[in-house]
């Protein structure tokens, strides 16, 4: 849209609050800037919770700073939506995306996603011994060898548990899991490290969390359990009060076009744009038995999951 383009040039820049890993996010920004559209991308990289908090804070203070917001936790966007903080905008080509990457109101679009999986330390556990199913984790042989992140801190885990609970038949699974005395850590970034170092032999987190660490050479292998893997999706949206609304639109279009999405796919993330190619060691999205998790469902069960988790795990 040339009119939008023109206005965007006048605005000159777009400010992106992003929870994408810093180097990756920077790569995206740099690629955008290289296109020399007359708009520069300014990146404010931070953790999901803190981005959410900052956006809320700034909105509360009447400050309009961010244009485009991306966090890993999809339920944040429900909140934004309920507070009427989002601009209705669908990136160009969104109609060709897988339907479950779009919300019904066209307020936000999932930028990337990763399945919630099991991983194991290849030095401690042989491929044959490795669990194949979620329920295998309750096997007493893994007692003291598991690591599990906390749903109260990690959106990935909250999503994963919301998805798994109905599939695995409720809380009994987790009650059984506590018998194995898992190491409870705070964020979804922790299990890969515990597994890589051998402190835990098996861990549960997002596939992307493990993939990144494994790619460096750490002894980690990933299992997609047979019961299916909850799909953790991370959305992107333009704020209603964006100070640079047109530049935001131009940038959002770039994020979802093939070039933008390919950068994310190269790093091991699953993206909505199906035109991209994935690294060879990644299983294509279609092959996976995905469990879709609705943000509404997450919002509804949030309290219950935190309370019940605390009851079972003590924290």
């Amino acid at each position, binding site marked *: 849209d040339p009119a939008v383009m023109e206005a965007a040039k006048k605005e000159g820049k777009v400010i992106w609050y992003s929870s994408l890993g*810093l180097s990756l996010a920077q790569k995206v920004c740099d690629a955008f800037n290289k296109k020399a559209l007359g708009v520069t991308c300014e990146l404010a990289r931070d953790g999901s919770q*803190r981005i959410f908090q900052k956006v809320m804070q700034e909105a509360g*203070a009447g400050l309009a700073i961010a244009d485009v917001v991306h966090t890993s936790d999809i339920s944040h966007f429900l909140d934004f939506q309920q507070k009427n903080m989002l601009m209705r905008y669908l990136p160009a080509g969104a109609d060709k995306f897988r339907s479950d990457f779009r919300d019904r109101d066209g307020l936000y679009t999932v930028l990337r996603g990763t399945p919630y999986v099991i991983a194991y330390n290849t030095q401690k556990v042989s491929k044959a011994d490795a669990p194949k199913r979620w329920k295998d984790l309750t096997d007493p042989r893994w007692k003291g060898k598991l690591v599990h992140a906390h749903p*109260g801190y990690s959106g990935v885990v909250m999503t994963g548990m919301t998805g798994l609970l109905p599939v695995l038949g409720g809380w009994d699974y987790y009650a059984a899991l506590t018998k194995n005395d898992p190491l409870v850590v*705070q964020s979804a970034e922790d299990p890969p490290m515990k597994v890589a*170092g*051998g402190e835990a032999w098996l861990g549960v987190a997002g596939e992307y969390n493990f993939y990144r660490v494994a790619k460096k050479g750490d002894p980690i292998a990933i299992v997609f359990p047979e019961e299916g893997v909850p799909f953790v999706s991370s959305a992107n949206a333009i704020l209603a009060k964006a100070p640079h609304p047109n530049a935001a639109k131009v940038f959002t279009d770039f994020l979802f076009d093939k070039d933008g999405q390919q950068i994310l796919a190269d790093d091991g993330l699953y993206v909505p744009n199906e035109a991209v190619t994935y690294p060879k060691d990644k299983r294509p999205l279609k092959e996976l038995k995905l469990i879709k998790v609705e943000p509404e469902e997450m919002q509804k069960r949030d309290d219950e999951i935190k309370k019940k988790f605390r009851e079972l795990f003590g*924290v």
Partner: protein
Amino acid sequence: MSSAATGTASRGGTARERLDAAPAVWLLSAAILAVLVVAPLAILLVTAVRAPEGPGFTVANFLEAFGQAIYRGPVGNSLVYAISVGVLSVVLGAPMAWLVTRTDMPGKAVVRTFTTAAFVTPSFLGATAYVILAGPNAGLINVLYRAVTGAEGALFNIFSMAGLIYVTSLYTFPVVFILTSAALSATPADLEEAARIAGAGRLAVMRTITLPLALPAIFGGFILAFLEALVLFGAPAMLAIPARFHVMTTQVWAFFQYPPQVEVAAAYAMPLLLIAVGLLWAQRRLMGRRGYTTVGGRASAAPPVRLGPWRWAGLAACVGVLLLSIGLPYFALLRAALAKAWGLGWSWQNLTLRNFHYVLFEFDPTRSAIVNTLELATVTATLAVFLMGAIAYVAQRRLLRGARVLAFLATAPLAIPGIVLSIGLFKAYSRPPLLLYGTIWIIFVAYLTKYLPIAYTACHAALQTVHVDLEDAARVLGANRLVAFKDVTVPLFGAGLISAWLLVFLPSLRELSSSILLFTTRSRVVSVVIYTLYEEGLWEAVSALGILLLGLTLLLVAVAQRFLGRRFLQI
């Protein structure tokens, strides 16, 4: 007629007299303090009693925060944790300070340098290193233990309250060390001599005279270590949660998670303020009517206590502590920093310097963050010491009515967890007249606010050692309070001031919990960068940066020692 004339003359005389800037300075300092502390605290207080939605006030937040047993438990845990850390810090820091300042123990400079280094190590870095060292399954110490003894279990499980206390104390004891050193080097020698001639041996002198005289400093150190543990988030998050218990900060953090209950979090933080008040009160009770200074006497330092063969034992003890707080953890960090993938362990194939190259040259934010951090720490330390020197002076000499309130204000921010404080700071400085949000200045204000208590405590303890007669002697000769302060007080408690400065400067280098909520692209600091890398699972890069930070600190300490000589961390 004549009396009227002289009356005018005498008034004229007063007018001609030197303008006394002192009251203005006190008032200004008090005003700045009030703004710095009252603004965010007031906002927090209001937040705590406000309904999440809509207008009106409520106690619901307090009911929510304290109505349930699961939320009350962490309060007890926090108290146990903080008290233990305070005590352990004193147990480690005070004897080390004595060994370094008052004995002929060898290797003092090394001990001092590495104690300083311990102080800049972010607790989450230390905690992570200790997970590698003492994790029950893969911890190097436990692996070694199993290999040597053939036992099944673990020698030491770091994921426990004991582990948490232990790790935290390793990085908070320098506070006690630094404060106590300054006080010990100011003890008049004749007071100790009087005890020795009364029959007290060296140890008895230390126990009954030297340490009690340093008590204000030691207790100040205890308070700082206690409060530090009370508001610490990094180490508890990594060690308490796996151990399946919460402390107040992890609980506060949980309140902040989606969907955030800011109001409940604010309410939950209020008891921490009460604890701060309680500590101040306890401090005053403890000090009571006692004095801590004498005039005259032999101000010159006493000759060092000869320990004989014990001096090697002393050195061994100090080195032991430093091995635990610096040696082992940084060994673990080094192992990771030099690895391509740290999970693979030592091997030639796995060895690389890439991580250093990466954090220094490829990873953009590092260099600007180092510059930012140094700038922030320097400015913060200088201003904090300046302000709090003045406030501590006012409070101690009771120059303004309500000086005790000032003392409370100055100590309050330390009782607020960084994340909660940041909320107050954000709300206070994100609108006119002080629109600082988005600039590096808000981080500066955050540091300043957060470290006022340390500066205050250190200045207060240092001021205890200057007898009021010495100042009065200057005033009666015509020096106003400011001039007397500059000419007499400052030089006499110079060592204390330098300590105070360092006590702010060093933790500013590692501050995370406020910075992480307030930083922007242009105002990253080193700790935020480290944490960012950590969040991306780049443990090798985190280690490399941690080691660089340590190197930078050692360099700074070396330079400081060069210029300040023996005055560094003592007289």
